[in-house]
């Protein structure tokens, strides 16, 4: 009844630590709070998109269009703000609705018409890229007028004030405490074993430790980045959705055995459309953040992002045939990817070698995964 940490999860984290140790040795600035902040911001939209990808990988689907889709959505937003003079909020809302609509449509084609997701989204990739370039007329459209920061541009450039950072860390710690106490009470009520108090305390202690260490470190530079808060919120939501709602369980059930899911009364079509619609919202968010990160929308935004997202999921233990994967794994996978890119950048490694390194790491990670999962019982 207790979830054990598997050898596999452990080895991924170990791999991540090794990478960190390596880079901090060859690049003294790697562990500087500035670089950690930069990595945190980079991580935020990589991981968010990977979370979205998880939602469709779980039921055995895939989406190759997220990269060009994110580019297009960012482009639409920038065009509305700069060329049409709309407010940032309303522009983002409209773009968000467009994204949800498009992805729900793709989901519907996949669910009702049974067109393989690979094809729909490959087509989508081409279509969105074409539309994207038309929308921005191949220009570079900034996210804001001059220096007037707006909601869009703030997504990746804003930091919480140091005080607020600590307050937030405090609140989070208290929430953890409450959750542990409530969880134990509930379990006791239903007659399940309850953790002894020192285990509960240990859990609380470690969680608080991590939270405050992070806050302190970020505050040494400019504070906790807003982007990380967004990442935490999205991550938490996706975690709750995948593990604590029927919708989430259905994602796993469909990926594990569609027929069984149908026979159990799972509304397979609606779930798949829902997963794609949610992914659409996440694509929009990623598009906003990517534009904000670059400070503008230009034709290359979103290039190859789909591959990064899929790679992050797979490195994090998500199965491409569905039914296996979780938020934490994907987070670790994204972190490995981002660390690798950041570290190589600090070392000024050239593009070709970066590509080779990324390819090899992807293969090695999955090889390790396969090797370790084979060891344990199937």
């Amino acid at each position, binding site marked *: 009844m207790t979830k054990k940490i598997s050898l596999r999860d452990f080895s991924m984290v170990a791999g991540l630590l090794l990478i960190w140790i390596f880079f901090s040795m060859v690049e003294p600035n790697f562990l500087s709070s500035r670089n950690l902040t930069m990595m945190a911001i980079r991580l935020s939209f990589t991981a968010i998109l990977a979370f979205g990808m998880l939602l469709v990988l779980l039921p055995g689907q895939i989406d190759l269009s997220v990269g060009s889709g994110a580019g297009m959505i960012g482009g639409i937003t920038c065009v509305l703000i700069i060329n049409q003079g709309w407010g940032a909020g309303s522009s983002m809302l409209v773009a968000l609705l467009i994204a949800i609509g498009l992805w729900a449509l793709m989901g519907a084609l996949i669910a009702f018409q049974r067109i393989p997701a690979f094809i729909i989204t490959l087509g989508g990739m081409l279509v969105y890229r074409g539309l994207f370039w038309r929308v921005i007329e191949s220009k570079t459209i900034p996210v804001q007028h001059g220096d007037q920061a707006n909601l869009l541009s703030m997504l990746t450039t804003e930091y919480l004030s140091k005080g607020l950072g600590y307050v937030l860390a405090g609140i989070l710690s208290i929430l953890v405490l409450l959750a542990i106490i409530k969880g134990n009470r509930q379990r006791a009520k239903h007659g399940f074993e309850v953790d002894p108090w020192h285990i509960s305390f240990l859990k609380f202690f470690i969680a608080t430790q991590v939270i405050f260490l992070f806050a302190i470190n970020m505050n040494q530079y400019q504070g906790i980045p807003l982007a990380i808060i967004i990442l935490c919120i999205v991550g938490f939501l996706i975690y709750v959705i995948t593990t604590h709602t029927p919708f989430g369980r259905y994602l796993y059930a469909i990926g594990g055995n569609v027929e069984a*899911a149908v026979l159990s009364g799972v509304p397979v079509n609606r779930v798949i459309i829902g997963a794609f619609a949610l992914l659409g919202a996440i694509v929009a968010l990623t598009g906003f953040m990517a534009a904000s990160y670059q400070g503008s929308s230009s034709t290359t935004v979103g290039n190859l992002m789909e591959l990064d997202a899929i790679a992050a999921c797979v490195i994090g233990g998500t199965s491409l045939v569905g039914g296996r994967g979780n938020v934490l794994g994907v987070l670790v996978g994204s972190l490995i990817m981002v660390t690798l890119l950041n570290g190589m950048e600090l070392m000024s490694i050239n593009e070709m070698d970066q590509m080779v390194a990324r390819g090899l790491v992807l293969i090695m990670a999955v090889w390790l995964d396969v090797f370790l999962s084979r060891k344990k019982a199937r």
Partner: protein
Amino acid sequence: MSSSHKIILQVDRLTKTFPGVRALNQVSFDLREGEVHSLCGENGAGKSTLIKCLSGIWTHGSYDGTIKIDGKEAVFNGVSDSEHAGIAVIYQELALVKEMTIAENIFLGNEPTVAGIIDWNIVFSETRKLLDRYGLKLDPASVVGDLGVGQQQLVEIVKALSKNRKILLLDEPTAALTETEVEILLNIIWDLRKKGITCVYISHKLDEVFAISDRITILRDGESVTTLEASASNKHEVIKHMVGREITQLFPRRPTTPGKPLLEVTNLNVYDDQNDKKILHDISFEVKAGEVLGFGGLMGAGRTELIMHIFGAYGRRMNGNVMLNGKSLDATTPAKSIASGLMLVSEDRKRYGLILDQSIGFNQSLASLGSFLTLGMFIDGNREVKKNWEFFKSLRVKAPGLDSVVGGLSGGNQQKVVIAKALMTGPSVIFLDEPTRGIDVGAKQEVYELMNLLTDSGKAVVLVSSEMPELMGMSDRMIILSEGHIGGEFKRGEAEQHNMLEAAMKFHGKGNA
């Protein structure tokens, strides 16, 4: 007996056609409240199709005729509609998600939520209660894929029962169960019946049917032939209606005098690396030409593992020796075994036997393509088709032709295709693992007759079966496995069922160290 004669479900002139097949033709039958009503019929008679119409898998409008529940016409546009109408189904194919826990599976599609969030505590505690109630000693948090087939089947039944429905449809629930598990199931059904729940029960095992049913409806070729009161009928009558002719002898074994030993196995010890345990301990036996050697035992005794290992598809050999036709056989792949004259018909034909999307011809010749080569590398299509036709006809496969897709055939006919594939490799020893599972009386007869023909022509057959009567009826010699050990050996006619059960239990609890 609680059968009031109130009719709660009525099927009126139901007709369902698939392209090229009329699976149901004007079928009518009714269900009385609180009865156990069995459906019998040959493979392909339309039993599963009928169940699928009742459960909403085939939606309203995809068939003609009406279904009435409590006198009102039922319009099912999906599984959830039939569930709302109080129908729960246990399907022939397992409907469980293997990666999920027992608790998650039982509540799949039916999760208790508070404000949209699943209350896992309720899920797990309710599951524990359910498992306790039906006497299953299983942990709600164990992953379904780790359970044996029989246990999975029971989980599935508990899942259906968890929904508190008034009509329960069971499509061959016992096909993969051991005798003890069957016992548990029949008791459960008996209990439900007392509580006024109505059951529709499908099985090819007529003993069970008579043990449990109030009434029996017989389907043949998609038509409802008749409905009998179980108490006023007998097996012979049912069989006659099912096949349309008398079957005089259930197990037509024609023993022959055994010749020289074809397969000799000595001191086999096998280890399963994936599950990290020793599966087979010191197994030795031999099979002679013209002989049928039966393997019996409880589910999980290691029979399938034994033959799969010899065939080269399972486990790691620690020590031991296998001789085939006097030559040492150390098969590491099925390909090598087949080349040396050994062939296997597996117990799960859909999973291990057939390429469902391909044609009959494709499947039949798949294992023996090497014998149709010209110029050493190209398949001579004409020779292949000719040979395929021979076997297609001699096994009397019921299908329009060699080009028909295997996935559309009924279970019995699929089984014949698998056997045809095996025979086409020209084996001297053939392993049949549960060759009659899920196939009807008529088809069974044909499989038995085939075994006779094989032994007549000097081949050896190894038969693995969980059905005691079949094992005793068809084997010349029987070996009973118990937890990976040989628990006993019996000659034809020497053994009583209880001796064999004793042998099967011999190593219980001390086996897999």
